[in-house]
C-alpha cells in the first residue's frame, strides 16, 4: 500500500504551553477512508489543520509523499490536499459555479485566467455531486444539503489525491448526511484518500475503512471500525457509558449511550421540577421565572 502521509511523534498547540496534540503517530495510505472521531475538544480539527499545514507543530515530523510538510509551498499543498473547513461562512452571495471555480485556483499562475480545461473540470465535478442545475443560483438560496454538495464539488475540482473534510455532514438532513459518506467511499474505491472528522459514529462505522479515535490530543485507538468501536474503548474516549452492538441487518456496529449511574438522583430532581415534591420550592422557582420575564420586558 502506497504511503501518502507519515506522522511521527507530532506535538502541537495553538499557543505556547498549551499542548493540544501529543505523540501522534499516524500513517495514511492511498485509498484509506479515515474517520477521525472523539469527544468535542479532543483535537480532531486541530489534527486535520496541522496535517494540512494551517497550524504549526512544535515537534515531531509530518511527511507528505516523502517530503517534509514544511518544505511545501501553500500552492503546492493545495494541489495535493483539498480541505473543506467545518463551517464555510460566506459574506457575499456568490453563485454555486463561482464557488466551485475557486477550486481551480492553485492550478493557475497569477496572471492566468480560466480556460476550457478548468471549465470542463468544474462542470464534471458539479455534475458528479448533482448540482449542475444549481450553477447560477446564489449560494445562500440553497439548502444546507445542496450547499454542502456545492462545496464538495469545489473540493473535487481541486483534483487532489487527498481530501480533508472537517465534519462535512454536520447539520444536514439524514439523507444528505449519508450521501456524503457514500460519495467519499466511492472516491476512495477509485484511489482517492479521504480523511474526515466525523461526529456520526454509526455512519463512520458503516462507511469508513479506518477510524482514528482521539482523546485529549492523543490517539487512543487506530484501526478498522470493528477494532475501534468497542464498549470499553469508546466509554473511555467519551467519558460516558457507550455500547457498540453489531447490527444483524447491516453487519456494522450500532453505537448508543447507556443511562448514567446517577439516574435515580435525576429522577428526584425531575420530581421537584414537575412540582410533585415540596410545594415551596416550586413556588419560589415560579416566582423567579416571573421576575426574569419581567426583567426582559
Amino acid at each position, binding site marked *: 500500500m502506497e504511503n501518502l502521509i507519515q506522522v511521527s511523534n507530532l506535538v502541537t498547540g495553538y499557543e505556547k504551553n498549551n499542548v493540544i496534540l501529543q505523540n501522534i503517530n499516524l500513517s495514511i495510505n492511498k485509498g484509506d477512508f479515515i474517520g477521525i472521531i472523539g469527544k468535542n475538544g479532543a483535537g480532531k480539527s486541530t489534527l486535520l489543520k496541522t496535517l*494540512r499545514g*494551517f497550524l504549526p507543530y512544535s515537534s515531531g515530523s509530518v511527511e507528505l509523499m516523502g517530503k517534509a510538510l514544511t518544505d511545501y*509551498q*501553500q*500552492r*503546492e*499543498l*493545495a*494541489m495535493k490536499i*483539498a*480541505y*473543506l*473547513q467545518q463551517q*464555510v*461562512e*460566506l*459574506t*457575499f*452571495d*456568490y*453563485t454555486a459555479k*463561482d*464557488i466551485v*471555480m*475557486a*477550486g481551480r*485556483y*492553485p492550478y*493557475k499562475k*497569477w*496572471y492566468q*485566467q*480560466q480556460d476550457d480545461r478548468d471549465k470542463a473540470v468544474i462542470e464534471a465535478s458539479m455534475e458528479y455531486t448533482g448540482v449542475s442545475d444549481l450553477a*447560477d*443560483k*446564489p449560494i445562500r*438560496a440553497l439548502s444546507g444539503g445542496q450547499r454542502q454538495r456545492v462545496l464538495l464539488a469545489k473540493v473535487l475540482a*481541486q483534483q487532489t489525491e487527498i481530501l480533508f473534510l472537517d465534519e462535512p455532514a454536520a447539520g444536514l438532513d439524514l439523507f444528505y448526511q449519508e450521501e456524503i459518506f457514500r460519495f467519499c467511499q466511492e472516491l476512495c474505491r477509485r484511489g482517492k484518500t479521504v480523511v474526515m472528522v466525523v461526529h456520526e459514529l454509526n455512519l463512520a462505522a458503516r462507511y469508513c475503512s479506518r477510524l482514528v479515535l482521539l482523546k485529549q490530543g492523543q490517539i487512543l485507538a487506530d484501526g478498522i471500525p470493528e477494532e475501534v468501536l468497542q464498549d470499553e474503548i469508546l466509554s473511555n474516549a467519551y467519558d460516558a457509558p457507550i455500547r457498540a452492538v453489531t447490527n444483524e441487518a447491516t453487519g456494522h456496529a450500532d453505537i448508543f449511550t447507556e443511562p448514567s449511574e446517577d439516574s435515580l438522583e435525576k429522577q428526584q430532581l425531575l420530581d421537584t421540577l414537575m412540582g410533585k415534591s415540596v410545594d415551596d420550592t416550586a413556588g419560589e422557582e415560579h416566582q423567579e421565572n416571573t421576575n426574569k420575564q419581567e426583567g426582559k420586558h
Partner: protein
Amino acid sequence: MVYHRKLVAIVLLVMLCVTVVFSLSAGQYDLSFWHVAAWVCQQLGLPVFQDVTTTAQQEAVLMFIRAPRTVVALLVGAGLATSGAILQGLFSNPLADPGIIGVSSGATVGAVVAISLGLNTISMFALPVMAFAGAMMAVFMTIVLATRNGRIPVLTLLLSGVVVGMLLGAITAAMLVVMDESKLQQYLFWTIGSLDYRNWEHVLMGAGPIGLGLIIMIFMARHLNVLALGEAEAKSVGMPVMKYRLILLMVSAMTTATSVCISGNIGFVGLIIPHMMRMLVGPNHKYLLPASILAGAVFLLFCDALGREVLEKTEINVGIMTAFLGTPYFLYLLRKHSNIE
C-alpha cells in the same frame, strides 16, 4: 433569482450617455439638454438628429469648463467605486470603504502638507505624489495596528482605520492653525469634495493613476473572488492571502489618493455603489468591477450635475450631494446587517 448582467450593462451605458449630456448642459450658463446632445454628436462625428449652431462662447463653456469637469467626475466616480468594491472583497466585509480604513484622510494630510509647504506651486505633480504618500502611510499604520500574528482580523482593521483617521484628522487640524488664510481656502476644498474649476490639467493628472489602478483591479478579479470567500477558504486553495491583500490595498490606495487629489474628499461612493451593483450583478468581481466603474462614474457625475441645478445662482458641492444621497442608504445597510445578526 438570477442576475441580469446584460440588462444592467445596457441600462448603465444608456445612463452614462444621458448623464454626460445632462452634466454638460447643467449650470448657470444656459444650454438646453437637446442642444448639448446634438453638439456632442457633432463633435464625435455621429449623425446629428437636429441641426444646431453653437456660438464660440457656448463652445468655450462646453470645452473648457464643463467637459473637463465631466471627465474628472467620471474618473473619480469610477476610481472611488472600484476601490470600495476592492476593499469590500479584500476583507470580505460589505461595509469597508476607502474612507473607513483611513486612506482618504491620509491622502488629505499629504495634500495639506503639500499646500502648506507651497509644494503645489512648484510642480503640479507634488500634490498627487504627497497625497499618495499620505494614503500609503495611513494604510501602513492601519495595517500595522491591525495585524495579529500575521493575520488581519476585519474588526480590528476597521477599528484601527477609525483610530488612524482620528489621528490624521488631528494632524490636519494642527496644520490649519499655522496655515495662512489664502492657503486655508485651498484646504477647505479638501474637506468637502468639489469638482468646481476642474480643468484639463486635472484630467491629465488623474487619468494615468486611476486608469492604471482600474486595469490592475480588473485583472485581479479572479484573485479577489477567492479572497472574498474569506481567509480560510482562500488559504485552503493555496492563496498567499497576506501578499494579495497588500497588493490590492496598495492599488486601491493609489486610486483613492489620486481621486482625492483631483476632487477632494468625496464620501459614500465607494460604499454604496459596489453594494448596489453586488445586488444587481452578483459578487463575482469579473462582473462587479466593470459594473462599479460604470455606476460609480454615473452616480458621481449625476450628483455633481444635480448640485449645479438644484439652486439658482449657486451650486452645491458634489461631496455634500453624495453625503445627502449616501447617508440614508448607509443607514439602511446598517439596519439590514444588524437584522441578520
